[in-house]
């Protein structure tokens, strides 16, 4: 005797086929989604060098970074330089800097400023090491008319000459305005070092690639400040999103008469200065 609840064969087949279809659709959706996600991640990673990898959730198209320097505030303590070296694994010597500070001193009776930076042998002698930096009191006893410090770094230009000349595209401008270098692709020709009018780039002999300031891209994409901005005790360095009207950099530009370095190059720098003098270039 046949059981009463037995379904007709055609219904079994329909359910089976429907089940297969559901499983297939789910599997396709899951695998497809995973593949697309992976692809998106690969594309996102491909846009960023390893030394400046951003958070996965970070969307560069939603930011437009800018940097401000208030030279009237800088006290030349050089904490920024030391912090940058440690944060970014910059060679610990007096010839490789992602950021540096220049000192301008006008002595009484002299027409031009005397300029030095932390790498000057006199200053290195004062610090006692190429790993630590300080400005020597070299003008002691002289009549100083005017003196000030100017922090320098990569200008992350809107029209960067370094990006233009890179023969393989290893250095590039991101959607958020940062100029970065892919160390896995750089061939080490140093054409970009020559093209930068600001002396912001250097060659890393250990890695055999070019290097420079990234505005601490690994930090800013996590919502942090660049290391040099973070450690500045007098807020001489300002960083933020130019797209946000209330960001520190937007306020800095709005509330001050700012200028950029070497505007005649047409590079259109994105580091804005307050309180610099005619001899600063």
């Amino acid at each position: 005797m046949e059981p009463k609840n037995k379904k007709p064969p055609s219904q079994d087949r329909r359910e089976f086929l429907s089940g297969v279809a559901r499983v297939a659709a789910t599997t396709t959706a899951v695998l497809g989604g995973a593949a697309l996600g992976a692809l998106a991640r690969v594309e996102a990673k491909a846009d960023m060098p390893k030394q400046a990898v951003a958070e996965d959730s970070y969307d560069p198209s939603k930011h437009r970074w800018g940097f401000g320097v208030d030279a009237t505030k800088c006290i030349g303590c050089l904490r920024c330089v030391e912090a940058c070296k440690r944060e970014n694994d910059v060679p610990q010597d007096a010839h490789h800097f992602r950021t540096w500070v220049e000192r301008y001193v006008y002595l009484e009776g002299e027409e031009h400023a005397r300029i030095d930076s932390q790498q000057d042998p006199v200053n290195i002698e004062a610090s006692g090491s190429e790993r630590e930096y300080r400005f020597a009191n070299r003008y002691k006893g002289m009549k100083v008319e005017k003196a000030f410090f100017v922090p320098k770094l990569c200008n992350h230009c809107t029209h960067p000459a370094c990006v233009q000349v890179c023969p393989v595209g290893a250095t590039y401008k991101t959607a958020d305005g940062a100029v970065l270098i892919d160390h896995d692709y750089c061939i080490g020709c140093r054409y970009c070092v020559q093209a930068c009018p600001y002396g912001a780039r250097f060659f890393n002999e250990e890695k055999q690639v070019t290097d420079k300031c990234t505005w601490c891209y690994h930090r800013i994409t996590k919502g942090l400040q660049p290391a040099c901005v973070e450690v500045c005790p007098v807020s001489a360095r300002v960083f933020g999103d130019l797209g946000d009207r209330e960001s520190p950099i937007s306020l800095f530009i709005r509330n001050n008469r700012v200028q950029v370095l070497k505007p005649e190059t047409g590079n259109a720098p994105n580091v804005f200065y307050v309180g610099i003098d005619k001899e600063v270039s």
Partner: protein
Amino acid sequence: MPAVLDLAPYAGWVYPNETIIEWSVLIAVYPYITGLVAGAFTVSSLYQVFDMHRFKPVAHLALLTSLSFMLFVPLPLLLHLGHPERALNVMLTPHLTSAMAIFGYIATFYLGLLMLEGWFAFRPYIVEQAQQRSGPLGAFYRALTLGSHDVSGNAMHYDRKWIFALAVIGIPAAHGLHGYVGFIFGSLKSREWWSSDLMPLVFLFSAIISGVALVIAIYVGSCRLRRTPVDLDCLKGLACTLWGFIMVVIVLEGLEFANIVYKAREGIEAIIQYVTGPLLIPYFIIQFAIGAATPLLILTFLIWRGITGRALVAGVTVSASLVLISVMMMRWNVVIGGQEISKTGKGLLTYQMLIWGREGAITAAVLVFAPLAVLYGLVRLFPPSERWEAREDADTQVVGAAPEIASQPA
């Protein structure tokens, strides 16, 4: 971390990262070699394209010279790169806004063109050797015939057409290659010493004089080695060519320098301090006075007075040697000089050339002289100015070829 040995002492104010001179002597050698290639090719083309038959004795030698040096053009760059294993990326993923990006294509194209033109030019000799020789050398020539042993009048006529076409294409290719090298420097706005619209022309014309001078030196040297007489008509033609192009070079370089000084833009004080100080001897004395003005005067005297014989050979060879030194100094003064003037316009650096090492003086010297060894080998395999060339002429009924004999009156 490897020791940084190429630190540059400085005076005045320079950016901290500038205290290492990044483009070494090898980058000065690179345009020097490229220029020799372009210049030697020019000599070859004067015969192949412009039918200047007085240059026939050196036409094939100039072609081989160009090829020998072209083989070494990429080497200074490869030795300089931090990651030479990534060098092919320039051709695989060229970043087309870069003045350097299409160098790989131009250089490869030009090398191919030189080899092809060389093959056509030496085909009668290759076929002859393939038929006469046995053993490995015979196999080598047979392979080089690419299966074509036809050296009939028609075939030679056809070959001449190819050589003419390749030489016609080769002139803009060679000159483009070198003008482009000048553009790599001239297009940079970061350095006043480099940033000049005249830079490609200065490079190009100095390349031509260096190549002509090299062919003169090699031709006279090879005649002495082989104990064969120098074709004085040919040598005088080369002397006139050299004289004419030296004039252009002096005018162009003078104009370039005058532009910098007359415009007197920011940083001119440092430039004046530099050219009247550290650059006085390399620039004014060696490059201009000894390397350009002196040969110009010697050549003027030789041409004006109709000097011939041994005095002509000696005078032209001395002039050519001085030009070769002058152009090397010009490359040095541009590449190294540009970096010795700080981007700040307020300081000067001093490049300290290493003796040993990948980018040292020894390597640079080897790169400059090694092509001569290759040329020696190529000349042994494909001797220019041999009897087969006469046959080539007879077959193609070229008229007006100067016989290769000595002491023709000028």
